[in-house]
């Protein structure tokens, strides 16, 4: 056990902190974070790449720095604590890239890897469909073989970043529906191809960060297939698994910043003397500490064994519930004025927006019910419920 960074990692953290400090001079905590426009987000991805912070854990031969996952953890943590903008190419960097390295052909790797690192090929993930959410193996989008390629038809929903993305990692059916997950294949689809229509969906808080993607007779070449034909399921699972390693560190660091905002709100609303508020704040603090250090535990296990272990399945579950409780408490602190919104509300409606949006935390990326099922089956060894 040692909760301090090793000297190399402490050095990496210090330099990164300095670098972030120069670029993000104002701290993230005093009030709601500022809105960031697309141009700035793109510029941010570019500057991260130029400074060598893109692809930290990717192998050096693919343009990465070949560092252990702990470095990605430090990077995610420091960025969140510094209030760094979202990384637009997060799906490419953390999910699609590593999957391409594992399953992609040399040509696919040459085509996409460097542009992913540079933020030039932005990816989104097209897995969910109107009829296939938790039950991903029920995907209906069809890819029919034609000479030299495939023709794709179907609908994808809730695809985050699709409105800005260049490519989509798409899960489609190449076999019979009865074959369930054995009849699926993964494709790298250019979102500018003819027949692709991306429509942003207006979210519960009024923002539009996910989209519906409609594919009507979209032609792709054989070189769009990632992995084996009919082998889409393991490819999809690999992407999801890559997300788990350090994602929890990002989530918990963001939650720490959110907690600082909560404390600022407690003070600003004059509720710091309220015993109920105090007890709730202390409970959230415990949940946050548990999340943070369990994240480190999972990361340590990942570096020791190559497998993040069963802890990871609970991190997302716990994070989502904690964040929902936090946003609800913050919103309730506003009293009768909690019913206001946008520019008429405290911090321009920040907590109203966060409260609404946080309800999706227990749905996106595996619902809490699905995650509990995974824990019950894989950790407690219970029989399948489905």
């Amino acid at each position, binding site marked *: 056990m040692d909760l301090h960074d090793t000297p190399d990692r402490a050095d990496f953290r210090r330099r990164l902190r300095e670098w972030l400090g120069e670029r993000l001079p104002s701290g993230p905590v005093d009030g709601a974070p500022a809105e960031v426009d697309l141009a700035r987000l793109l510029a941010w991805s570019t500057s991260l790449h130029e400074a060598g912070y893109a692809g930290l854990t990717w192998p050096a031969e693919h343009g990465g720095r070949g560092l252990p996952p702990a470095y990605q953890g430090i990077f995610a943590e420091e960025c969140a604590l510094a209030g760094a903008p979202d990384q637009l190419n997060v799906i490419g960097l953390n999910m699609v890239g590593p999957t391409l390295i594992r399953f992609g052909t040399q040509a696919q790797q040459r085509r996409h890897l460097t542009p992913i690192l540079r933020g030039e090929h932005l990816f989104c993930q097209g897995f969910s469909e109107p009829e296939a959410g938790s039950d991903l193996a029920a995907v209906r989008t069809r890819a029919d073989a034609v000479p030299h390629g495939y023709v794709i038809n179907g609908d994808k929903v809730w695809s985050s970043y699709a409105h800005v993305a260049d490519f989509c990692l798409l899960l489609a059916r190449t076999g019979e529906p009865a074959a369930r997950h054995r009849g699926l294949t993964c494709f790298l689809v250019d979102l500018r191809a003819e027949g692709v229509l991306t429509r942003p969906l207006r979210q519960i808080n009024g923002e539009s960060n996910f989209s519906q993607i409609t594919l009507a007779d979209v032609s792709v070449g054989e070189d769009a297939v990632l992995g084996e034909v009919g082998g889409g399921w393991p490819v999809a699972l690999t992407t999801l698994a890559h997300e788990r390693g350090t994602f929890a560190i990002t989530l918990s660091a963001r939650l720490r910043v959110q907690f600082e905002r909560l404390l600022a709100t407690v003070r600003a609303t004059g509720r710091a003397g309220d*015993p109920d508020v105090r007890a709730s704040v202390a409970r959230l*603090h415990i949940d946050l500490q548990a999340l943070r250090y*369990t994240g480190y535990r999972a990361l340590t296990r990942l570096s020791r064994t190559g497998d993040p272990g069963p802890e990871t399945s609970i991190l997302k579950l716990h994070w989502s519930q904690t964040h929902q409780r936090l946003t609800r408490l913050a919103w309730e602190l506003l009293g009768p004025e909690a019913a206001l919104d946008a520019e008429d509300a405290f911090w321009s409606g920040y907590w109203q927006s966060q409260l609404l949006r946080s309800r999706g935390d227990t749905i996106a990326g595996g619902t809490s019910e699905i995650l509990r099922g995974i*824990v*019950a089956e894989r950790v407690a*060894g219970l029989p399948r*419920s489905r």
Partner: protein
Amino acid sequence: MEFGPTSAQEEFREVAHAFLATRYPPERVAELADSAYGHAVDGWDPLVRMGWLDPELDLTTLALLAEESGYVLHPTPWWSTLGLPPTTPATPVPRTFAWYDERCRSLRDTASRSACRAVRSPDAAWRVSGTKRLVPDLASASEVVLSAETPDGVALFSASPTGPGVSVTPTRSLDGLRRLSRLRCVDAPVRPLTESGAATREALGLIRWRTLTLLAAEAVGVAARALDLAAGHARERTQFGRPIGSYQGVAFRIADSYLATELARTLAYRAAWLVDQSALTPPAEVDGAVACAVVAGRDAALAACEHAMQVLGGIAMTWAHPVHRWYRRALWLRSFDASSSAHLAELAAQLLEADDAPHG
């Protein structure tokens, strides 16, 4: 950042696990709980031989032992003894700490008040008078450490439970394996351990941290056992033609127990590590980590036991089924020292008032 026991620590744990599992199956533990004594008379020597009492053991290792002990309900005074800072006698004996009395109701207050009086007689020997209550494991301890007020403030003393002027009265206890007794001293000769003032405050601070951290780790062990009892039953028991573990109403309770147990385990390890690092760490940070571990550990133990009882159904309501032994321990842990509300209040004060406290 290396968050996890080292391989040497894990090895120690594995040896302990195997030893405790063979020696204390639930039937033996139940028998002992219902016996006159409540402890395994032959339980102490093997612990000494295995090195549990080595003064060099770090608190993380002890926390792992506490976890394993909670898992089987290890029926010896290990917790009472290990909560005290280690001593270096040739053969370590079981010890316990007597602090709860009419004037002192929380471990936090031990350094500032006690209803027991210590006076120094002209021959320079110390004598203590007064009554301590709720002393755990007193019946099996060979030495009792107690706090008493001297004319200069509270100091710590050591007494023999069988010594002159000392009487021990057992009380009926909810947990038959960790019974509470009353200790009455009338001019009882005692040996001074710490001088009043800074030395006593420091010793008591460390006792509090150790005791509460091991309590939190033990709670994790209790939760883990309750989880296993529930999961084992859910795999075996069939109703409506299916194992009950395939029903989500059952499975989700078990998943929730697992979640709470893992989070509490993290916090117990962190507290143990920070207590060991306390010379290099701001006391508020150690205090905060210990409070987190205690609150989360107790909640996890209680919730896991209650989930397990629901999953077990009617048999959980019988004396014969062992689950109530762990439930009683979970309740015992819940009742020890400051309430969870008091710990939460302490954390809130750190978060909302102290500007230098580490947040998040």
